[in-house]
């Protein structure tokens, strides 16, 4: 009975609906007669206390380190961090390299590859993942077998994926050679040795690895949709296509957000995949910004340039993610 005294009578902002948002506000005002007790204060604070360690860790270990990286990009750091600010020379060098297109500078190659790879990787994984999830959701027999088949590539580390596909795509050792031996001698697939096409092989290997997991995410999302809604819509006469387009996919918007974030994270992390699959590509033509950053920070002992490139990468991601997040999250908090 003492619990009733606690001031967390929920306040309804809007009428109930099966999937609509309902805010629960914790308002001490309701306890005006008794005045807020220590216990009620604690209860109010409890959620925030629970969230606090994670938030604090993020502030220190993410934002703190980002600030450290930004700081370093304005110094003259070479092999080790040096803390004397020297100016934006690292950015000036990167800026100059952005316009070195013939022959392409490593930085230019990295950012154009990031555009190609990032776009294709994310778009194809999302579409393929959604497609497979919808297919699997059709009461398929053998779903228990197919799901791990689509999912397992994610279990392999980038290094292993790269090595396996490198072999597979090598004209002399892999698919081309096999098909030649089997009689199909006009088959050619030497993208991996071609400086203009090698980045697409990275896309292929990357999509192979991640799309199964995206499928799993969408499948979980589909499974979380209340079957009643779907039935109601069908009773109303919606065709299957309309059902998916108008109801299911919009309901999956949070999953799109999560999937996008996962894919963006993997795309940023693809350093190992590029190295294992292409050794950097002919003349360094497969470089991604993560390769550039690693190379300059740890191999060329140019930590300032490496930090600057990381900052630019972060800014680019921010520029893409923040508007997306804003539109997604804003709607929810009506």
């Amino acid at each position, binding site marked *: 009975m003492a619990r*009733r005294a606690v001031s967390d009578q*929920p306040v309804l902002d809007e009428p*109930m609906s099966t*999937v609509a*948002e309902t805010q629960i506000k914790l308002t001490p005002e309701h306890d005006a007669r008794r005045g807020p007790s220590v216990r009620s204060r604690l*209860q109010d604070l*409890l*959620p925030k206390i*629970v*969230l606090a360690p*994670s*938030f604090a*860790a*993020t*502030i220190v*270990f993410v934002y*703190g380190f*980002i600030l450290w990286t930004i700081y370093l990009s304005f110094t003259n750091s070479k092999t080790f*961090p040096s803390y004397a600010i020297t100016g934006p020379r690292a950015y000036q060098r990167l800026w100059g390299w952005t316009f070195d297109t013939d022959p392409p500078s490593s930085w230019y190659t990295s950012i154009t590859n990031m555009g190609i790879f990032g776009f294709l990787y994310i778009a194809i994984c999302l579409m393929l993942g959604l*497609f497979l999830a*919808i*297919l*699997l959701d059709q009461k*398929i027999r053998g779903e*228990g077998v197919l*799901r*791990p088949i*689509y*999912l*397992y590539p994610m279990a*392999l580390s980038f*290094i*292993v994926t790269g090595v*396996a*596909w490198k072999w597979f795509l090598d004209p002399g050792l892999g698919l081309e050679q*096999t098909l030649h031996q089997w009689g199909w001698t006009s088959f050619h697939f030497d993208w991996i040795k071609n400086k203009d096409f090698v980045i697409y092989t990275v896309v292929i290997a990357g999509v*192979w690895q991640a799309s*199964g*997991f995206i499928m799993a995410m969408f499948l979980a999302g589909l499974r979380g*949709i*209340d*079957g*009643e809604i*779907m039935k109601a819509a*069908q*009773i109303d006469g919606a065709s*299957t296509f309309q059902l998916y387009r108008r109801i299911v996919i919009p309901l999956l918007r949070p999953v799109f*957000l*999560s999937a996008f*974030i996962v894919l963006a*994270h993997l795309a940023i992390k693809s350093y*190992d995949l590029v190295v294992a699959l292409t050794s950097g590509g002919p003349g360094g033509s497969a470089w991604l910004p993560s390769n550039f*950053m*690693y190379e300059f920070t740890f191999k060329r002992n140019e930590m300032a340039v490496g930090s600057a490139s*990381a900052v630019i*990468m972060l800014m680019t991601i*921010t520029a893409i993610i923040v508007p997306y997040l804003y539109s997604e999250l*804003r709607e*929810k*908090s009506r």
Partner: protein
Amino acid sequence: MSAVTSPARQASSGVRSRTFNRIVIYGLLALFAIFYLMPLFVMLVTSFKTMEEIQNGNMLSLPHEPTFAPWIKAWSEVCSGLTCVGMKGYFWNSIKMVVPAVLISTLLGALNGYVLTKWRFRGHTLVFAMMLFACFIPFQSVLLPMATILGSLGRFGVTLQNATGFNFGLGNSTVNLVFVHVVYGLGFTTLFFRNYYEAFPTELVKAAQVDGASFFQIFRRIMLPNSLPIIVVTVIYQFTNIWNDFLFASAYAGSGDVMPMTVALNNVVNTSTGVVEYNVNMAAAMIAALPTLIVYVVAGRYFVRGLMAGAVKG
């Protein structure tokens, strides 16, 4: 997309078009299955061949004289640096690091998601967005500053131990790795749970509160039991990422006896000299991937539908 059927339409569709739809669906699924399986097939088949067969034969052909020798070598004889105990020596190192990290980060993510959706406060969206950013930080940027902090924590731990006689585990490489992976996994786990709980009917929570349940009771009795699909997704994701991480593992736990599996695998596969033993490498790679695969298969059983159906009507 128009090929998919739906239960309510059974009566209206002819049997023939339904069969056609089914064939198309199964056909597509099978085609993709081949795409996903092909490299695995190559890896498996290679791991059972002898080196002569690999060098002279065809990548996709089945082994003429299948042999288990590469697997045995990979498990118990292969060398990581100067230590030749095979992959089995490093299994435990990875497990004892991954399991706590996955459990802790998943639990924290669930709690965070719960707070952010069912116990909203002013600025909750901003807090969530800020935490999301942790997903984008490139690990190479945090490697050195984190090393500095871990080193300081380690020395602090030694001081503590001298002062109190208790070993708090600070500076232990397993503890370090668990800490690092939890911190950088929080963004994802919070994201997954928060989005899932967003769609979770708040009426249930409200009803429980009316019944007098506390913060943690609601979490334990209502949220968690109904979160199976997202727990599965989160565990899969975290387990995979942490198990396969190389950068932090090599930097913070690279020492021979404590190194996780990924570092050992890298030492086996990434050798730059000598005859590259593809069969052993493939076997080793698959041994390294085995726990993750097991997690996938086991976790898959929880992809059940209809948990929410009827829950609101009650």
